[in-house]
């Protein structure tokens, strides 16, 4: 079987002349040439090549469910992660050394992320059968013709389906999700908008890199239209995991309530997100035509944990609702009410 043979070839140490040998050489190199100011296209291509190889390997596994192909995909995923993390680390060090303007760096990052996704889509489309390739071409064309309002509606529809999955994963910890095109990672990332805020509050890039393994950030939870904080927290809190949930309430110096309903209610109350009647009020600073999101981040710095809850709104800067760095008291405003 070709896949098995291919998997066998990739799993053993690559030899000169084999494609994976070239890839390995590329990953081992670190030529941080100063093209385009910060990013080197050579370095980016290395990461994208690793990503392409991983994705192709994963796709083989997905189609065949072959255990050998799975091993190959896992190996390639690790190679990709190494390449990506090395680039990120070099970039952070370079930026700090050269005092790169954060806004300029953000644009470069955005461009990189977009390029990465576009390249992946090309790869995946090339692997589809002819009938689906034609459907994809027509769909892509249709998407590009849609007006912005319709596009936004589509995005909401997809996110609505996708975020429901996140809750499923968190509430079924024993369940093994299918491997995904990335890492089938749990719903905890390594950095966040909240992390960016802490960067702004004085943690150097180097300090952030050192503490990266201790940063736990929930994927932002979108607040549904017309929804209050309690409902949003009821969807968000189950994704934290018991230990992080315990830590959150410990930071607030409140015993962890037994039920999810109580947890969401207590947290909303603590953050002053209830109305005068004690009900979950609509967030006053949320534009109902847009969507907002909560981000909960727990970070350990020098052995000490702190929790931050940020509300991102499309109409203003992120609102820090809670920052336990200086004690358990929530942020009391002023809130952006526009």
């Amino acid at each position, binding site marked *: 079987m070709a896949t098995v043979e291919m998997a066998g070839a990739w799993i053993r140490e690559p030899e000169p002349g084999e494609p994976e040998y070239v890839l390995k050489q590329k990953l081992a190199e670190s030529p941080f040439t100063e093209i385009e100011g910060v990013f080197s296209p050579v370095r980016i291509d290395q990461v994208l090549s690793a990503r392409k190889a991983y994705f192709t390997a994963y796709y083989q596994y997905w189609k065949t469910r072959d255990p050998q192909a799975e091993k190959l995909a896992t190996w390639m995923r690790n190679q990709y992660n190494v390449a990506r993390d090395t680039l*990120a680390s070099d970039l*952070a060090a370079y930026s700090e050394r050269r005092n790169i303007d954060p*806004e300029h760096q*953000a*644009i470069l990052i*955005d*461009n990189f*992320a*977009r390029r990465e*996704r576009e390249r992946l*889509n090309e790869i*995946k*489309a090339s692997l*589809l059968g002819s009938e*689906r390739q034609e*459907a994809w071409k027509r*769909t*892509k064309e*249709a*998407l*590009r013709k849609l007006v912005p309002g*319709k*596009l*936004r509606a*589509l995005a*909401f*529809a*997809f*996110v609505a*389906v*996708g*975020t*429901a*999955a*996140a809750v*499923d*994963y968190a509430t079924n910890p024993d369940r093994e*999700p*299918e491997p*995904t095109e*990335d890492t089938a*990672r749990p719903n905890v990332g390594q*950095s*966040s*908008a909240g*992390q*960016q805020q802490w960067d702004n509050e004085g943690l150097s890039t180097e300090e952030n890199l050192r503490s990266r393994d201790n940063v736990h950030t929930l*994927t*932002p*939870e*979108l607040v549904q239209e017309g929804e209050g904080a309690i409902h949003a927290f009821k969807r968000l809190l189950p994704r934290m995991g018991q230990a992080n949930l315990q830590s959150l309430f410990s930071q607030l110096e409140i015993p962890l309530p037994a039920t999810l309903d109580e947890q969401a209610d207590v947290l909303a109350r603590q953050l002053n997100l209830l109305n005068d009647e004690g009900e979950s009020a609509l967030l006053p600073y949320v534009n109902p035509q847009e969507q*907002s999101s*909560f981000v909960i981040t727990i970070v350990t710095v020098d052995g000490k944990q702190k929790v931050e809850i940020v509300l*991102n709104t*499309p*109409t*203003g*800067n992120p609102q820090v609702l809670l920052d336990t760095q200086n004690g358990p008291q929530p942020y009391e405003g002023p809130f*952006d009410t*526009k």
Partner: protein
Amino acid sequence: MTNATPMFLGIPLASSDTADSLEMTMLETISLAVIDALPSERLAEFEEVLAEGDEEKISAFIEAHVPQARDVIGPIIEDIHDSVLTFA
């Protein structure tokens, strides 16, 4: 507030162009995954529903006809979200 921060999946970005572009990339990626996962006989129907752009119809269609829809779409959203934050 006059200078609204461009957002994508709750992440503040440097420009609204970038946010729009990432949104389109996400839509394309998920559409591609849905096309791959849909039974052949549903492909044309998906194109029609997508072209209409009705949020509720699309959600309902995907939930009804894409096997393991949440497992297909959820990781993609997380992946894109984490990609944008990789260097943050």
